[in-house]
């Protein structure tokens, strides 16, 4: 990589003014809509929705479990998409977006595993089994942790940001496997309820679930934007410190 491209990269980091203006305007909107929609959907799900014919009251955990499962996978989708954009177009904001999505994605994946486990105990009769769906979702959590460790190490040691980007792309293989796991293999987890052929979830459960999904997604997007702003501020502060240190050295 020549000096020219490096300068351009630094410039991209130092002055992403248009992105910051957009992020600053979008963040409060996303937080507001996200909190309103998810609170409303969860209250609706807890108070107004009737119990399920077989599961009874425990069905209400669906309003957290499904949105977190979706965001666990969508989070890695964000990492993979941003990594692709970084490798191809070398846009520094893309690398930042991938790093920013890792922690929220990992948190949602962990929430999905925890709520699923709590749901599994009364309905299936067990906290955990090693079937295809549960195992592939646990692997997703481990991939997130590995990605976070790798991107932090690369940042600290100053290695190429292409390393975590390649890992982000390779890890995307797990996403279709999670999706297909209940179709390919006999599993304790039930097959998908929402397919291209329609939904086998009754409307009284489906609507609050979809609203919770939109609300959680807005919160996730807000977290990613805030994280990106924090990472940008950190990079700028470090650059300033370095410049000051160099000036002090020159003076001495």
């Amino acid at each position, binding site marked *: 990589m020549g000096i020219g491209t490096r300068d351009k990269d630094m410039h991209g980091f130092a002055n992403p003014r248009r992105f910051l203006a957009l992020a600053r305007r979008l963040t409060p909107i996303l937080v507001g809509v996200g909190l309103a929609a998810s609170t409303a959907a969860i209250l609706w799900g807890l108070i107004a929705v*009737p119990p399920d014919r077989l599961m009874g009251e425990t069905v209400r955990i669906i309003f957290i479990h499904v949105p977190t499962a979706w965001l666990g996978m969508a989070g890695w989708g964000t990492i993979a998409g941003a990594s692709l954009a970084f490798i191809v177009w070398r846009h520094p904001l893309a690398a930042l977006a991938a790093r920013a999505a890792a922690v929220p994605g990992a948190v949602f994946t962990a929430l999905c595993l925890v709520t699923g486990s709590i749901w599994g105990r009364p309905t*299936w*009769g067990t906290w955990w089994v090693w079937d295809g769906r549960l195992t592939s979702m646990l692997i997703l959590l481990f991939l997130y942790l590995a990605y976070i460790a790798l991107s932090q190490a690369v940042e600290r040691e100053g290695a190429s940001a292409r390393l975590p980007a390649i890992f982000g792309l390779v890890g995307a293989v797990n996403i279709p496997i999670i999706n297909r796991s209940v179709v390919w293999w006999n599993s304790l987890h039930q097959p998908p309820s929402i397919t291209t052929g329609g939904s086998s979830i009754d409307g009284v459960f*489906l609507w609050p679930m979809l609203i919770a999904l939109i609300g959680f997604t807005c919160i996730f997007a807000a977290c990613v934007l805030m994280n990106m702003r924090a990472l940008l501020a950190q990079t700028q502060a470090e650059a300033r410190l370095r410049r000051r240190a160099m000036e002090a050295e020159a003076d001495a």
Partner: protein
Amino acid sequence: MSVTSNSTLAPKHQRLILVLVALFVLIAAGLLAAWGLRSQADYFYLPEDIAENPPEPGRAIRLGGMVQNGSIRTLDDGVTIAFAVVGREGNAVPVTYRGIVPDLFVEGSGVIANGRLAKGGTFEAETLLAKHDENYTPRELEGLSDGAMHEVLEESAAQ
């Protein structure tokens, strides 16, 4: 790298094609590997698997399927229940189990039994897991015929 002629792709397009091809190959390899696992990664045997290739008696296995309608009965000792598990092709395996059954253990619903096949062909379960299906229906609609359910749904949709 100097790009002068029109026939040469710009570097970013080269990278785009390279990454997309790599990603395609990678996902294809991953899916192929997962697909190859399809019988090894099954969580349980279906009754037809057991009929086709009976496991040796005494080996710990999992049996999964539907609880046959009308098959649950309590044996004379008062604590053991017996029922039949049916698969997709109509094969049935008789199962006995002593213990507390999960709430969702009902006839016509999915079940996974951990246990062993006894010599007589009866499956002796040590634990039972209930399998939920992909349908979520409120309790009010339970027991309604299809026609009546449609009426209720249309009513609630009209409100």
